[in-house]
């Protein structure tokens, strides 16, 4: 990895933002930029991936490396970036449809790996960019104005699913609480392992139910009410994850936010080292594979094993 002499520049690009006025996404963008400024990670060492949807345009607005991928695949791209170059700081953005509809297989599988990255889910209950169809997190029986019929499917609970899938950092925050969101992003980035933030993000155009007014009175901070999410070992984790699951089921007049679990355990780079002793010793990207066109990897022994 190149150690950077470059100072963190402004983390904002001058690309014109095309979210609807008042969109909850603005709060997320601001909180992320504040978090990056506070952490002072050199711009060139950050990769921000996106899927497809309003949320996933965010890579274009943050002045870091931007991998705008396919619908549902933001997390997959993020995992591969981190595996290929563990020296990078990797953040993945996705909508709720991205993460929990089309990308749900990756969501579950990611928990098994525990790649050290931050996953931000922009959760608004609708598919905004295609004009407001029901997303996997839209509560049962609701009918925002953009829907033709009421929603007869039960919602996916991102917190519960994150805990069940083995995510080692699971949090909920709110796009209109920039201070909490910024602090949560910082904690997620500092967390060694897969960190997910389910961000309540009202869609001002299509979801007239789960609005700012809806969330403002309901969201409460579990950590302010005494919850300590930290698990330093497997026993503590087993104990806490069960309680966190119970908390995650709360929805209605009171909606919990804050960090549900923060489990310090082996990350994927550490696990890879069990199989590949030299993994991470030299950077796969910047350590050359050739010299004057000649390969540096000698396969003579591989060939000899077949004689």
């Amino acid at each position: 990895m190149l150690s950077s002499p470059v100072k963190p520049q402004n983390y904002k690009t001058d690309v014109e933002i095309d979210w609807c006025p008042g969109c909850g996404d603005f709060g997320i963008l601001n909180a992320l930029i504040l978090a990056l400024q506070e952490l002072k990670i050199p711009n060139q060492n950050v990769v921000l991936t996106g899927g497809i949807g309003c949320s996933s345009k965010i890579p274009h607005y943050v002045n870091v490396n931007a991998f705008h991928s396919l619908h549902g695949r933001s997390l997959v791209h993020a995992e591969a970036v981190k595996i290929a170059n563990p020296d990078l700081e990797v953040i993945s953005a996705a909508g709720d449809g991205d993460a929990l509809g089309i990308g749900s297989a990756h969501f579950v599988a990611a928990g098994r790996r525990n790649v050290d990255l931050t996953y931000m889910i922009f959760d608004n209950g609708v598919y905004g960019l295609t004009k407001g169809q029901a997303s996997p997190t839209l509560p049962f029986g609701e009918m925002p104005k953009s829907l033709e019929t009421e929603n007869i499917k039960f919602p996916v609970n991102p917190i519960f699913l994150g805990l069940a899938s083995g995510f080692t950092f699971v949090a909920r925050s709110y796009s209109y609480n920039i201070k909490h969101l910024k602090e949560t992003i910082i904690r997620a980035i500092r967390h060694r392992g897969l960190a997910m933030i389910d961000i309540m993000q009202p869609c001002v155009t299509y979801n007239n139910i789960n609005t700012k007014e809806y969330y403002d009175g309901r969201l409460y901070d579990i950590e302010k009410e005494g919850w300590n999410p930290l698990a330093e070992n497997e026993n503590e984790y087993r104990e806490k994850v069960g309680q966190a699951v119970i908390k995650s089921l709360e929805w209605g007049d009171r909606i919990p936010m804050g960090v549900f679990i923060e489990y310090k355990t082996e990350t994927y780079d550490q696990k890879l080292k069990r199989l590949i002793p030299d993994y991470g010793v030299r950077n796969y990207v910047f350590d050359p594979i050739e010299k004057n066109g000649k390969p540096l990897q000698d396969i003579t022994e591989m060939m000899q094993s077949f004689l």
Partner: protein
Amino acid sequence: MKDLNLMVAGPQGSGINFTSDTFAKVMAREGYYVFSNAELFSTIKGEHSYFRVRVNKDVVRSYSERVDILIPLDKSSIQLHLREVSRDGVIISEERVDDDRAEIVPYRDILQNVANKFNRPLSEFNVMKNTVALAAATKMIGLEEGKLKKVIEENFASRPKIAEMNNAIVDEVYSLFNPKRELNIEPTKPAKRMLINATQAVGMGKVAAGLRFQSYYPITPASDESNYLESVMGKYNFVVEQTEDEIAAINMAIAAANTGVRAATSTSGPGFSLMVEALSYAGMTETPVVIFYYQRAGPSTGMPTRHEQGDLLYSLSAGHGEFPRVVIAPGDTTEAFYDTVESFNIAERYQVPVIVLLDKAMAMSNNTVDLFDLSKVKIDRGKLILSETSNYLRYRFTDDGISPRSVPGVPGGLVTIAGDEHGEDGHIFTEDPDNRIKMMDKRMGKMERIKKEIDEEMKVKFFGRSDSRRVIVSWGSAKGPILDAMQSFNDLSFLQIRMMSPFPADEVLKYLKGKEIIAVEQNYSGQLAELIRQKTGLETNARIVKFNGRPIAYEELIEAFSAVPKKRRVVLTYA
């Protein structure tokens, strides 16, 4: 005899692959050329399967219909394969068979003696019946028993007790089994050749090429390659990632490539179908990712362990929208190695997705191959930037249509990548029609450039006399049986097409124009013949096709070559 063909047949899981692999290895060490073919059922245990090993002092590139030594590991195998055994062939049997080619081997006595020697019950040795048959075969062809024992020892290097037991069986067979006659194979000189299949050749090619990231989802017949790579990744320091599905596999390979490492994924037809959306993304984002595509018999799940070349036209057209792609089809194990290395160079030089088309026959036939010449291995990473830069634009318009490629971590080289149409900076908020035309020209223009810059040898190979009237045209693993069958004719030449996209129309016209063209393909419709017509206007005079799930035996091709072009379509049926 000159050509010796051994067949081991029996229920899957009864050690047939161990038997044939060991025999192939022993004969390869003796200096013979070996070509083997595996016909497996898509099951773990029980169903009838058979392996063939062809041995010759001269080079052999295909299997034969003839069986000289049949090793049946159950009763039904005798009935199923008896008619294939040549007149002077041998059936190594445990039970009496009413056939004077049968050599009866006292399996039970041999195994009982060894069981006694180790003071263990006979039941523990029944799984080693195949070793009895194997030793009987090597004794009949006059092979020194120590040579067989050495290979067995190596095979069981991690389980020395098992090696000892098997070798005690070999001793017992060599002292107790007195065959009625001997089978003589023409002697040869010792030689150093690898015994490998294409999955291993590709694996070695990837390591030599500096691969750092491989992703895959288990699928026959592609996963053998990834499993081989897993076995060496600790030593050669790269990651093989088993993903949750093929969608993740291709997306991970793409993201790893965009991070700056050489990255690939390997799959077969059903898995490739899942990858297609991302293939289009790789084309749009100009990502140098390489997909190794092992064809098997389709459509749908088809016959998962059987062979076919049915996905040529699909690999050329899969993906929505228009984008540049390179498709390379190696024709044998050696080509698989060098083409693997080159596929990464092409991918990085032109910043395009590359598909390397292989097939089940290549993936599962072990054959003798000379050591690869590593001095021929060259690495060209194209316009990759790994040190500080400035005023960087990922999709900058350049004279050759190829932009300098920075990666995350390079100071001043921030990268923006997007699958939406984008400007030079990678940002997507331009759907400007003029930009669209320039970007399409930039991407699609690579195809002409590739066509112009790539050597003829990478595109086509011509065998035989250029003045011959009849020219066979084919691709992929049909190459082996074609070269073997051609030796029986003096009016035939052969054009092997190796690069399918961009299609080498000029070279193909050069060799085929004015000739009687015979296409040989392992699919139903003659997909290459269709492609040649589309790209050159040339019509084939006859199509020899095979689509019963089995690779081509050279003898059936000899027959077919005699029948065409009087017959316009010949369907090969040997199984």
